[in-house]
């Protein structure tokens, strides 16, 4: 896509900030999370439960595919007409007594909300679970400004009391089991006694008691929104416990933070999404409570209503025609629940507020693929396609993953234009400034920053030079040499070095033969169990979770050299004349019987 072609003002995409970045890149984080067997067992139990429920309630809807088609098309329409729909939404909210604020990024949204809370004179707010406010880190920002935000959703409360991080879109505490939750409640809830058992019913009752007084007395609430209707200015929150209704109904002031992509054109469109969302999300025919409100209703509910429209990178996602459908997401979390990678790594490994398959395509686009830590996310998938199958709005997640991998590779190789690839201006965000430790593990020098300074001059040539001369010796020292000779150039990755090296070796019969002499070394490494449990560098990712079988004692090429004469021998015995008896025989040894000096061991090795 070229912006200048159409004579439009060139607006460079501006990426988002906040809890969208991993502190640690996925491969490293996943390695850590994989050690947590309890967490994996909890997630496995939960995701398998919900999969079954979802499949059963989706199966009873005969027009499910038609609903998905509609949902997908409606969202496509929203994205294409977003400016007009946002302006219509603003007008309709204002006409009903609401106030609309616009926030370019997380900082701006946090400032607006903090100021609105301050104006009410209170320092306590109650919150409805919201991905958008999690994304912008609102709770922490409020706390820095002396405002206490209490999460009222049970799972969010568990996370907040446990000083933990959410790990699932729908059930942020999915990684905790009932025993662990009981421990958190007993430790953190004033008045919790030994009578508190690990029965979910008892734990839910404890949460009710804990929050009841808060609901009755707190004057300001903050929510997210599942849907905003452009034609009416109506907002909707979908929930189960009634904490949402409490927050949306009882306080004097309600502040709703909504991503700009959450709009729907018409009220009629809700009839599609109210069918798609609950069945995909909790595996219920309908969630217990759905609230709809438009501005402020005199004499019913909060009389002061504000909505903050949040960009924070969404417009940047929109600028990529091949990736923008990630914005269609209605945060149901069905893709997390079916994902084999999520099931094993858990939500924390993704770092971002948005974990799982949808997070793997959304987070790197919100922050820009040039954001080093998130650049590993598109690889956090086996491309099995289960996520696409269950997505209620038919986001083709595998396609976008492949597209983003391509973007990443082209960025790595300097094949994207500066406008394309340059990290767009992101407001101050420590997460993007910290040194990368995903790529740097794989970058030969460990100096990832030099690679970021001048994307325009990136060239794969440097990779050609150094790596080819040094396949057998340490790739790390080779990389250092390259870096010294061309510090401003693209730093080749280990993968580059491996590919170049492989090409160098395989293009010459002599070098290939020489390289194969190294095979017995692999057998030494493999040891008695005939398996290699650890390999260094970029291939090490493979051996982290599985073993590589030891290499054969002898390569096929070497084996063939010794045995190719047998063919001629057999042909001669059968009375067939070889077509070209001179071919190759000059190089090879004379025809030998199988029981040659090579011995039986060699044959074993060749057959292994």
């Amino acid at each position, binding site marked *: *896509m070229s912006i200048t072609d*159409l004579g439009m003002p060139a*607006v460079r995409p501006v990426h988002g900030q906040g809890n969208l970045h991993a502190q640690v890149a996925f491969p490293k984080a996943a390695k850590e999370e994989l050690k947590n067997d309890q967490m994996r067992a909890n997630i496995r139990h939960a995701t398998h*439960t919900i999969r079954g429920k979802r499949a059963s309630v989706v199966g009873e809807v005969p*027009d499910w595919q*038609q*609903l998905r*088609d*509609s949902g997908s*098309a409606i969202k*496509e329409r929203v*994205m*294409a*007409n*977003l*400016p007009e729909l946002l*302006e219509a939404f603003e007008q309709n909210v204002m006409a009903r007594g609401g106030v609309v*604020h*616009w*926030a370019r990024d997380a900082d*701006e949204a946090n400032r607006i909300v903090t100021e609105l809370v301050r104006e009410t004179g209170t320092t306590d707010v109650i919150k409805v679970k919201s991905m958008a406010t999690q994304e912008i880190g609102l709770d922490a920002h409020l706390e820095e400004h002396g405002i206490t935000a209490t999460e009222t*959703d*049970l799972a969010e409360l*568990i996370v907040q009391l446990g000083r933990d991080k959410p790990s699932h879109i729908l*059930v942020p505490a999915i990684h905790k*089991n*009932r025993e662990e939750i009981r421990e958190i409640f007993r430790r953190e809830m004033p008045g919790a006694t030994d009578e508190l058992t690990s029965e979910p019913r008892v*734990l*839910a*009752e404890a949460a009710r008691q804990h929050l*009841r007084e808060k*609901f*009755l007395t707190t004057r300001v609430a903050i929510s997210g929104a599942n849907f905003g*209707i452009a034609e009416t*200015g*109506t907002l909707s929150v979908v929930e189960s*416990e*009634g*904490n949402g*209704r409490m927050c*949306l*109904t009882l306080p004097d002031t309600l502040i709703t933070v909504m991503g700009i992509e959450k709009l729907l054109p018409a*009220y009629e469109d*809700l009839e599609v999404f*109210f*069918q798609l969302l609950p069945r995909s999300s909790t595996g*219920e*025919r*309908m969630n*217990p*409570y759905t*609230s*709809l*409100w438009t501005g402020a*209703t005199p004499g*019913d509910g909060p009389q002061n209503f504000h909505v903050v*429209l949040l*960009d924070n990178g969404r*417009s940047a996602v*929109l600028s990529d025609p091949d990736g923008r459908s990630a914005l269609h997401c209605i945060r149901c979390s069905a893709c997390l629940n079916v994902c084999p990678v999520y099931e094993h790594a858990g939500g924390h490994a993704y770092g971002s507020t948005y974990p799982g398959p949808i997070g793997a395509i959304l987070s790197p686009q919100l922050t820009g693929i040039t954001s080093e830590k998130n650049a590993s996310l598109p690889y956090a998938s086996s491309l099995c396609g289960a996520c696409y199958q269950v997505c209620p709005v038919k986001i083709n997640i595998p396609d976008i993953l492949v597209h983003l991998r391509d973007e990443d590779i082209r960025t790595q190789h300097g094949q994207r234009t500066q406008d394309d690839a340059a990290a767009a201006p992101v407001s101050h965000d420590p997460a993007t400034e910290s040194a990368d430790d995903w790529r740097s593990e794989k970058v030969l020098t460990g100096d990832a920053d030099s690679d970021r300074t001048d994307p325009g001059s990136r060239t794969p040539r440097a990779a050609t030079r150094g790596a080819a001369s040094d396949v057998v010796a340490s790739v790390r020292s080779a990389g250092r040499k390259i870096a010294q000779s061309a510090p401003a150039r693209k730093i080749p990755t280990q993968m580059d070095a491996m590919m170049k090296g492989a090409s160098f070796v395989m293009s010459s019969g002599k070098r290939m033969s020489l390289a194969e002499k190294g095979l017995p070394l692999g057998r030494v490494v493999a040891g008695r169990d005939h398996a290699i449990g650890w390999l260094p560098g970029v291939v090490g990712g493979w051996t982290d979770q599985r073993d590589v079988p030891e290499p054969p004692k002898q390569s096929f090429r070497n084996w063939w050299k010794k045995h190719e004469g047998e063919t001629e021998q057999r042909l001669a015995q059968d009375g067939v004349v070889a077509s070209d008896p001179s071919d190759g025989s000059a190089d090879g040894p004379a025809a030998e019987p199988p029981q040659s000096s090579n011995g039986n061991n060699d044959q074993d090795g060749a057959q292994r």
Partner: protein
Amino acid sequence: MNADAKTEILARIRGALTDQPVVPETPRAYRKTSELSREEIVEMLEDRLLDYKANVFRETAESVAERIATQLGASARYVIPEGFDTAFLPEDTAARRVIMDPNDARKASALSVRELNQVDAVVTSSTVSCAQTGTIFLSGRPDEGRRAITLVPDHHICIVPLDSIVELVPEAMARVEPTAPTTMISGPSATSDIELERVEGVHGPRTLDVILLG
């Protein structure tokens, strides 16, 4: 400041859409009209509500007062919205008393949140119910009241007139005024936040009695 933000965000979005994506006509091939009989639809609603652990009763104009009395129990202070048909209610007794809310929190006689927290139950009517999903819609009409009265009390007795029951979600949505403050209720409050195991009864009313009236 805010105007600047709006201008900039809209410029970013317009800049992002310079490929001028073609929008296909939205297909709406999903079901919009029920093909079931009235009795089948009512049975479906009943089945779904029971699945959510709501209590369901079929009553007539003659039997409804007695049903409400039974569900309230001998001793109860309960609230009704101003427009609720009092002919459906049992006579007050010394221990059982009805309180009328004026449907406007600004009025002096409106119950405060604290007072609502003290009452035992609330009795209201409803706008429409969707059988397919077991969902009852309240939209703030005079016999449904403002949102707080059906939220804070722990026991909600809800009248669902038989002729307000439809099968499909689109049929139900079509009967609701879009800008009305609306609450869609599918069973008593519940959570699945602990090991994704559904538990009924968290912050909203823990008991939902539905009276199918007709």
